């Protein structure tokens, strides 16, 4: 598999979520942290307000390693606005599904093809790198989607984004769709932008890269419209753990990214959220915990807590086994006898729930 690029859209897609709004300073700090983490693209939308325009200027002026990609509609008006910021990259979007063409854009399929080609050619004439997004691609007739992608490619689009805008794909259907587009236009570089309405955004994104896409769109903590898009933490770890690539990503900073987002938005991270959720390296059940102790975590961890800047924690209470008490006895010099361990164990079994936890 090719090297997979990461585009983070926290400052564009993420801000489209209720309660998510970043000040200029927070936008710049978020972009800086994403850049340090190692994303390849940071997507920003300067078309929203004066604040968003100022934030985009700040981020473009910050000299980041990542490409800052400015997002707008496939209209000459938006392209001119985006161009006024002197970016290297812009992303322009146009709906391709029947339902969007009819009810949102009031355009025919032929008109949409023409609009895509004209706007891409216009942006290219301004010297811009262009990503063209086929909005609602997953609900678009596949033959028409290929015609659209080919029109975009022929007009000079540097990248084409295939979207599952309402999150209705399965991994196999997403694989099939991306594979069709890639097979029809082998030289096209494809992004995937998968929404999480049915909890399949990560799986669909991974299926897409297996089918030939080379860039996954993410947000910190999976923010975005409705159920959001894939979490940057889970995508990054999937690339490292499952596909053995992107070792350059600074994954130990993922918890900091997640916390920063929570602090800025006051939206708490789900404790079960992969990689960064507070439960991810907590072990509780007696037999699990015993196996974790004997295997240095390998028995019940897909990757080490240290690799992502976390620590392993053990929970003591009703569910505990003797292993955790023996572990504590050894590490704190308690010198508990077997009879004392058994007695303490019996008392823990009388408890209702968890008593305490600690970093192992």
């Amino acid at each position, binding site marked *: 598999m090719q090297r997979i690029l990461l585009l983070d859209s926290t400052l564009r897609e993420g801000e489209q979520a209720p309660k998510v709004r970043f000040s200029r300073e927070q936008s710049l700090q978020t972009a800086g942290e994403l850049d340090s983490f190692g994303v390849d693209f940071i997507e920003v939308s300067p078309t929203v307000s004066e604040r968003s325009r100022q934030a985009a200027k700040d981020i473009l002026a910050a000299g980041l390693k990542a490409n800052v990609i400015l997002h707008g509609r496939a209209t000459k008006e938006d392209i001119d606005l985006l161009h006024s910021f002197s970016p290297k990259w812009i992303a322009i979007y146009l709906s391709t599904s029947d339902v969007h063409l009819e009810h949102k854009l009031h355009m025919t399929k032929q008109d949409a093809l023409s609009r895509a080609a004209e706007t891409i050619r216009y942006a290219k004439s301004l010297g811009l790198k262009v990503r063209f997004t086929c909005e609602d691609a997953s609900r678009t007739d596949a033959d028409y989607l290929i015609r659209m992608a080919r029109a975009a490619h022929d007009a000079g689009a540097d990248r084409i984004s295939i979207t599952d805008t309402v999150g209705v794909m399965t991994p196999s259907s997403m694989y099939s769709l991306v594979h069709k587009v890639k097979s029809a236009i082998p030289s096209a570089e494809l992004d995937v932008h998968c929404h999480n309405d049915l909890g399949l955004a990560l799986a669909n994104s991974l299926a897409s890269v297996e089918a030939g896409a080379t860039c996954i769109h993410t947000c910190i903590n999976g923010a975005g419209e409705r159920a959001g898009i894939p979490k940057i933490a889970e995508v990054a770890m999937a690339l490292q753990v499952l596909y053995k690539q992107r070792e350059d990503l600074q994954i130990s900073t993922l918890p900091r990214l997640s916390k920063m987002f929570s602090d800025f938005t006051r939206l708490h991270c789900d404790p079960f959220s992969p990689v960064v959720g507070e439960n991810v390296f907590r072990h509780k059940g007696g037999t699990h915990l015993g196996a974790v102790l004997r295997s240095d975590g390998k028995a019940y961890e897909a990757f080490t807590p240290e690799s992502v800047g976390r*620590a392993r924690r053990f929970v003591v209470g009703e569910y505990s086994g003797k292993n955790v008490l023996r572990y*504590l*006895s050894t590490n704190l*010099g308690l010198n508990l006898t077997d009879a004392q361990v058994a007695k303490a164990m019996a008392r823990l079994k009388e408890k209702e729930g968890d008593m*305490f*936890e*600690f970093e192992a």
Partner: protein
Amino acid sequence: MENSISVFIGVVTEEKAKTSEIIKAILTIPGVKSAWELTGSLDLIVLASSQSVHSLNVVVEAVRACAGVKETTTYLVLDSHGEVKQR
């Protein structure tokens, strides 16, 4: 659920040691929450807490190393009751 681990450290002091000085030293150890003077088989009992078992062990070792401390016994806190929740 408490998000830290606590122990009581029972201390027997040297015969001629000044208890007040031992307590003063013990209370400077990060992680020590409180200390009580007792009569009987223990002279002092010290409550210490930490989020990490390893850093808590450092606290236990530091108490042990205080001048005038003869021997210690460490007791893990499984639960606490009543008004004093000292973790």
